[in-house]
């Protein structure tokens, strides 16, 4: 505990923590729209396409100036997005192939530029390669101001155009029909993925930045039933994973920040996919078992009821083997469960035959209730 307090009173660590919070907010808010619009691969392309921009920004400024670097990254990211759009609209190339080509092209160009810059004997070239995987400890106060400004602008835009973004994401056709400028809104949403990438340059780096945008949204999606809540929760997940990753990398020498942040976010995703009520894998499995059990029991009840009705004998005893072959499966378990609920009871019929079953009074009532709730819509 004292270790944590000490860590947090450190000036660099404070910077890192604030950077993590800003990154969490930006990627949480913007990632939700990217995930719901199924643009993960586009996000990956935009992130890799930021690398040549980083180098160009550096070359223009002549030093490691964050303002120029962010502007350059934003520029090449958006150019890549436009390139993919034109490629898929004008040619027969499919979107995923277009995105894949753009990713390879821009990232290769970025690495070439990077090695070119590092080959020059310039003292201020220091550590451009940290933008590959991020280096939280290198965050300066001035960087935070830039990150904060971009984050606030992005969040303000989302709040201002909330209903438009929501409708365009859910039902773009209806959005057009009611008169929203859908093409413009979609372009802005795409450009905002590039904004998130730029905010994450310092902390996570270009290689893993999509995961940072996507993961909090994917985790949040598991727990909520409204977009408003999804965005808030994604912000929370983003902040927590940013902080965890950044603090670990600050306290253990030479651990890369970006991968740690992404590992933290991915761990939260894994837990969410497993455990989230309603959508989690575990929950679904349990519901599946439970459904199978109750459906089995219900079917058994109605079968017994119909058999009795068919024989005009409310106490008609049905033999287990006959019920097995009617349902095409072993029915012993369902019958025992119904017996425990007091809905059926075994009766002695003829010696040498298998066990026979009859409905109890409660069983008959339950069977009638089940039959009544079986609407044609369910059938």
């Amino acid at each position, binding site marked *: 505990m004292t270790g944590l307090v000490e860590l947090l009173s450190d000036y660099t660590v404070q910077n890192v923590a604030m950077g993590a919070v800003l990154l969490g907010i930006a990627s949480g808010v913007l990632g939700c729209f990217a995930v*719901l619009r199924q643009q993960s691969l586009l996000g990956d392309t935009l992130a890799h396409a930021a690398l040549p921009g980083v180098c160009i920004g550096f070359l223009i400024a002549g030093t490691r100036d964050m303002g120029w670097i962010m502007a350059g990254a934003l520029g090449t990211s958006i150019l890549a997005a436009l390139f993919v759009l034109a490629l898929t609209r004008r040619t027969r190339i499919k979107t995923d192939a277009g995105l894949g080509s753009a990713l390879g092209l821009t990232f290769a160009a970025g690495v070439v530029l990077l090695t070119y810059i590092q080959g020059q004997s310039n003292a201020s070239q220091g550590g451009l390669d940290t933008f590959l995987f991020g280096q939280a400890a290198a965050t300066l106060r001035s960087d935070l101001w830039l990150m904060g400004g971009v984050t606030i602008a992005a969040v303000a835009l989302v709040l201002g155009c909330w*209903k438009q973004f929501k*409708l365009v994401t859910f039902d773009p056709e209806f959005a*057009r*029909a009611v*008169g929203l400028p859908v093409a413009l809104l979609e372009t802005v949403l795409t450009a905002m993925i590039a904004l998130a990438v730029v905010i994450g340059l310092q902390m996570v780096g270009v290689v893993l930045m999509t995961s940072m945008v996507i993961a909090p949204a994917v985790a949040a*999606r598991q727990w909520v039933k*409204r977009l408003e809540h999804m965005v808030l929760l994604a912000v929370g997940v983003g902040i927590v994973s940013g902080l965890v990753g950044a603090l670990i990398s600050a306290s253990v020498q030479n651990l890369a920040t970006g991968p740690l942040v992404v590992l933290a976010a991915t761990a939260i995703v894994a837990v969410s996919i497993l455990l989230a009520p309603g959508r989690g894998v575990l929950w679904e499995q349990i519901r599946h078992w439970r459904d199978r059990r109750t459906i089995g029991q219900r079917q058994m009840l109605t079968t017994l009821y119909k058999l009795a009705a068919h024989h005009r004998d409310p106490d008609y005893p049905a033999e287990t083997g006959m019920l097995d072959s009617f349902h095409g499966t072993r029915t012993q378990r369902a019958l025992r469960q119904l017996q425990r609920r007091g809905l059926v009871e075994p009766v002695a019929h003829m010696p040498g035959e298998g066990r026979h079953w009859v409905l109890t009074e409660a069983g008959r009532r339950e069977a009638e209730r089940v039959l009544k709730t079986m609407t*044609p*819509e369910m059938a």
Partner: protein
Amino acid sequence: MALFSTLRKRAADSASYHGLHEPDLALHVEDLTVAYEGKPVLWDIDLNVPPGVMAAIIGPNGAGKSTLLKAVLGLARPTAGHVCIHGRSPRAQRRRIGYVPQRSSVDWDFPTTVLDVVMMGRYGHLGWLRWPGARERERARRALETVQMEHLAGRQISQLSGGQQQRVFLARALIQEADVYFLDEPMAGVDATTERVIVGLLKELRDAGKTVIVVHHDLQTVRDYFDWLAILNVRVVAQGRVADVYTGEHLKRAYGGRIALLEREAFEGPRGPDAPQENDA
């Protein structure tokens, strides 16, 4: 001379844009052609629907019915022709148009509730920065009551049945408070209750003087539900009052050989005892 013709052209443009063109018709489509990748999907469509009717658009799969609705709503770009709603371009009449797209056109796993989706019907009426508020919520609740779904207002949309999804879309169109409603196969794949609710509601709209235009898939119910009919297959095969247009001849022209089986069901069955029988002659 050149100046004069430019001026005249401009006057004609603004007349068709700001003035009224065929104001007595709820929907007027003239010479409309829509092509996807050079292949015409709709060709030379002329279509007129008077106000206050409940009209069906029928035609085989791929006939261009959905495309026609999209072109009319400005969602698909026509290569030729024009569309007027109550005498003006659809763009100018946006607030007088209600739209129920095909149910399959959205991802129903989107994180939102029934009430939220219904409120989207007001988004086009709200100011740019305004968030939907209490008034919109109240309207949405009333629309949900109309489609008998008020008890599901807070439900996540991924948990709806097909019929319920369709009623949510209908409620969303209702709070658009339009004069002309366009619906794309609202009764396809829904349960009997939903179909009854939808048809009842559409008839109410028509009786209140609105125009209801429905892409319909079920030939059996055309005569029960509708009073106006357009039969479509890339071109318009026939249009007018259902009684005049719903004939085996027209259906055969639209559906080709595939109608042969259906025809017996739809025409010989319901024919009254006083209808002339061919084998009597």
